[in-house]
């Protein structure tokens, strides 16, 4: 217990702000909640589940409580040295919370109860030792204690005003006079009694849902909530120390089955900015089948994060990452299969001497000895009149008797009237002349 350190985040307007992402205005959201048009408890719970996954990147012990809060705790003792000290870590966490759009108050203390209390105690919210904690708590008013109003009133009528006065009383006397729960709470507050918290368990797959209080018709309106979902997703991936090759965005509609898109990457990634870029490209060309009532982000498969550290190896790997980013963007906007490479294939028939290939696939180079070939080919050989001017040739190509696609052709370079150099052949089996390539 003594080495433990707890960060508590109080989120006073969690439900409104979670909803505000869709209606853009906290006031509207508050009105929606007040009019019970939406289920505030469900929204709060969903938002907290996403935040717990996000918080997992800094702590392997995350816990939360919705009543009297909402409060989110991160146990930090084991990980604090990893992040360059408490101040840097707190600044980092607070900045991400602001990006997510949540009002928050953070405090750090040796016990979860004290950390929760200090989120409401004004300045100086970080204490790291029990001795420091005691002197920090002593001058604070009793009203900050997480005790019922009846207990607080009883303490007040007993002439107690400050927490320090209460802590001077013997624990047994407090238990006798105000109840054992009060005594236990005070011991937990000071870190002298253990205070086990239900540890939030990271689900094996990721699924985050975001409900809109009004239907969304336009894909651009999805971007704001999506940005938040992706930031939280990034936190989850960091917490699990893993990355993804793809994730799915599902759009729920009223009285209609959900639609969705899968965003794929050519290399494992966990960068929210990259995800958002790809999602934006994809959404731009997406036509929604109906208005969207909720948005869900799902990832089922994860890969080890070690592959992400390629940038340590310098220039080549960095260039590779830039290329992958480009390929992913092109594919997201233009569609799968629109970005390809070429490879050679060992076949003497010119039209079978090549294949489309997946970019970045290293290819073997078959050793096909042949005369110089043109740089461009027609999709299909085109029947032409016998050319008037032959510049060179013939080159005899006989091949394919083994697979039924046998050819016997004499190839020439011909010149057209406009000066173009053509790659033509005479079909010796069936007769006739064909244009197959251009010496571009």
């Amino acid at each position, binding site marked *: 217990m003594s080495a433990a350190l707890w960060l508590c985040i109080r989120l006073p307007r969690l439900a409104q702000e979670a909803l505000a992402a869709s209606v853009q205005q906290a006031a509207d959201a508050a009105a929606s909640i007040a009019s019970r048009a939406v289920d505030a408890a469900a929204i709060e719970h969903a938002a907290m589940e996403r935040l717990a996954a996000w918080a997992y990147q800094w702590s392997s012990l995350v816990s939360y409580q919705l009543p009297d809060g909402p409060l989110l705790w991160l146990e930090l003792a084991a990980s604090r040295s990893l992040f360059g000290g408490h101040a840097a870590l707190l600044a980092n966490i607070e900045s991400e919370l602001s990006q997510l759009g949540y009002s928050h108050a953070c405090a750090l203390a040796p016990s979860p109860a004290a950390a929760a209390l200090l989120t409401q105690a004004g300045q100086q919210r970080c204490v790291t030792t029990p001795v420091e904690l005691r002197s920090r708590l002593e001058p604070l008013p009793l009203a900050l204690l997480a005790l019922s109003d009846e207990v607080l009133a009883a303490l007040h009528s007993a002439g107690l005003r400050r927490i320090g006065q209460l802590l001077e009383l013997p624990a047994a006397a407090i238990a006798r006079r105000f109840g054992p729960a009060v005594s236990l709470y005070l011991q937990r507050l000071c870190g002298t009694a253990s205070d086990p918290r239900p540890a939030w368990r990271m689900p094996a797959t990721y699924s985050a849902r975001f409900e809109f209080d009004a239907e969304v018709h336009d894909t651009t309106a999805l971007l704001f909530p999506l940005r938040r979902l992706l930031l939280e997703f990034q936190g989850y991936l960091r917490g699990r120390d893993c990355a993804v090759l793809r994730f799915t965005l599902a759009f729920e509609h009223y009285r209609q089955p959900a639609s969705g898109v899968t965003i794929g990457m050519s290399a494992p990634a966990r960068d929210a900015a990259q995800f958002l870029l790809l999602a934006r490209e994809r959404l731009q060309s997406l036509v929604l089948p109906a208005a969207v009532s909720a948005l869900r982000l799902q990832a089922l498969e994860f890969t080890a994060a070690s592959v992400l550290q390629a940038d340590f190896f310098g220039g080549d790997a960095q260039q590779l990452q830039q290329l992958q980013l480009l390929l992913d963007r092109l594919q997201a906007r233009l569609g799968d299969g629109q970005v390809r490479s070429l490879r050679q294939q060992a076949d003497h028939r010119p039209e079978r001497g090549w294949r489309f290939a997946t*970019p970045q696939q290293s290819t073997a180079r078959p050793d096909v000895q042949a005369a110089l070939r043109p740089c461009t080919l027609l999709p299909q050989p085109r029947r032409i009149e016998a050319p008037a001017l032959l510049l060179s040739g013939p080159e005899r190509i006989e091949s394919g008797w083994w697979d039924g696609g046998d050819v016997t052709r004499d190839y020439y370079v011909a010149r057209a009237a406009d000066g173009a150099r053509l790659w033509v052949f005479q079909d010796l089996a069936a007769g006739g002349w064909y244009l197959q390539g*251009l*010496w*571009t």
Partner: protein
Amino acid sequence: MSSIPVPTGSQRAQLLEQLARLCRNGEPNRASRLATSSGFPELDANLPGGGWPVGAIAELMSDASGIGELSLLVPVLSRLARAGRYVAWIAPPYLPYGPGLAQRGLPLERLLLIQTRSLQESLWATEQALRCPAIGAVLGWPAYIVDRSVRRLQLAAEAGGSLGILYRPPEAARESSPAALRLRLHAAPEGLAVEIQKSRGGACGLTLQVGVAATVAA
């Protein structure tokens, strides 16, 4: 990036530089513009910096298809690709033939063939590719392009340090364009006749005979 070729003869270089300053005529100082050898000495000698402009757009306006308009680029594309950079072809009007390109020294795995469904998509993809530092050269065939788009692509090429090539119809030669280099290509009995219509910081109006037919892989 490959190194800048050293001009042959310092006097000649000085002369070119003087000429370049005159041509620039108050334009922001871009004297140190990079260029990369085209692989054709007769062409390099007449282009500022000694080759294709790096980080800029060059327009090629060919009288016909099949006169060597692509062979003119194959040496520089091969060199960029062998140096580890990628070469992006955005919606080419014909199929790049792998065996032919490989014979000329272009490693096919460095070639990216990007299909699009509209001019707008083509311009977008061209810009994205130009901005990416992993890409050495981008080839585009826009059926139609306005000055504003060319300027946009020029900025993208500058940001990515890449070579941007736009193949444009011969009629485009009648209009002006903000591209750094504009060449008209005519069929010639031995190779290709290259007419320098516009060359930022270089001489214009020349027509050069370039031996593209001789570009056989070693």
